[in-house]
């Protein structure tokens, strides 16, 4: 490839193979899960295309350097810029939707989703980059190079997927059904005061007949740091209302004594298992995550 203006078939195969690995990686982690995001089909297409661009940047970086085209390093800054744009795009798009949803996602959850989308583009970039390195380094026939590149690319995908996989509320807490009680227009769930805006008989009756509630109890006391976080509770409430719909009223409240968190609402679809599942699967936000271990730091040095 020394200064050649036209790519050889082998180089072209390496680039195309690497782009394929990177794009496939992006598609494989582009799941439409219970959070129904990204939206199908246009959201899918957008992220597939940005994944393809990320994979292309990863695939051509090394062949460009091998051809002594050192300006190609600027590709990396271009990649960074592109990924940042993906994050910005997601953030803007979700922020614009805030006033149309049943409840707010909240800034912390939006930030988490946007970061996830950015990091998934890095995954596409890294897998195609590693695949391209492998294909270039292996001293065998082109089809063995391609197989090697695919294997390394997908191994990298597996590792990165596990590395970036976050925890959810269900990993750190128990989620159980709560008992709703309305006393003198005050709403209580398992004895925890929630709200006093059920001032009319209609509101009281509606909540007593159709209200649903879950109690989140942290497994360890220090998990309260995560669960008490405002953004985290808002994210759980958002997931609950999106899974079941929201006819009227949706509250989240924390209990200061035992660290329990209440999610209660009047859903459109009454399905307790779905409510518990939605809350359990709500991701723990990176911005709410705090290291418990830091509290044990030995500052004295003995």
């Amino acid at each position: 490839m020394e200064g050649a203006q036209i790519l050889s078939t082998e180089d072209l195969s390496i680039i195309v193979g690497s782009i394929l690995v990177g794009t496939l990686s992006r598609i494989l982690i582009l799941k439409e899960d219970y959070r129904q995001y990204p939206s199908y089909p246009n959201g899918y297409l957008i992220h597939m295309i940005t994944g393809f661009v990320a994979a292309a940047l990863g695939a051509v970086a090394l062949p460009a350097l091998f051809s002594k085209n050192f300006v190609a390093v600027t590709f990396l800054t271009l990649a960074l810029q592109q990924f940042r744009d993906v994050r910005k795009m997601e953030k803007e798009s979700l922020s614009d939707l805030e006033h149309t949803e049943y409840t707010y996602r909240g800034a912390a959850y939006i930030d988490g989703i946007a970061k996830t989308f950015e990091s998934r583009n890095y995954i596409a970039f890294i897998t195609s980059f590693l695949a391209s390195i492998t294909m270039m380094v292996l001293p065998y026939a082109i089809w063995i190079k391609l197989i090697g590149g695919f294997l390394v690319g997908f191994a990298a995908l597996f590792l990165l997927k596990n590395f970036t996989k976050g925890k959810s509320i269900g990993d750190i807490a128990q989620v159980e059904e709560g008992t709703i009680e309305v006393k003198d227009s005050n709403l209580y769930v398992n004895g925890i005061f929630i709200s006093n805006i059920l001032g009319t008989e209609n509101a009281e009756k509606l909540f007593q007949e159709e209200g649903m509630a879950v109690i989140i109890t942290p497994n360890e006391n220090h998990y309260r740091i995560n669960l008490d976080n405002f953004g985290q509770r808002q994210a759980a409430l958002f997931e609950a209302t999106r899974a079941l719909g929201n006819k009227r009223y949706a509250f989240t409240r924390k209990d200061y004594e035992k660290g329990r968190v209440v999610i209660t609402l009047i859903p459109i679809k009454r399905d307790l298992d779905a409510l518990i599942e939605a809350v359990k699967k709500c991701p723990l936000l990176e911005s709410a995550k705090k290291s418990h271990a830091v509290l044990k730091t030995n500052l004295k040095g003995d």
Partner: protein
Amino acid sequence: MGRESSLRPEYQILAYVTLAKERVISSNCLCLLAKSEDEAKILTADVAKAMKADVTKLTNGDYVIIRV
């Protein structure tokens, strides 16, 4: 009241419905004096429906119509 958990909820008192004349003082919200408990309930429900608002019943029996 799905906006309860927004970062800075903006509560707005739209109306105050009471049975006691001495509690009607000047304010920037509508104050309604009801003749009976039933009338207070009906007034509150009507205003809340029209304004798409929520209602809080105070322990003294008065109603506050609020919007979040």
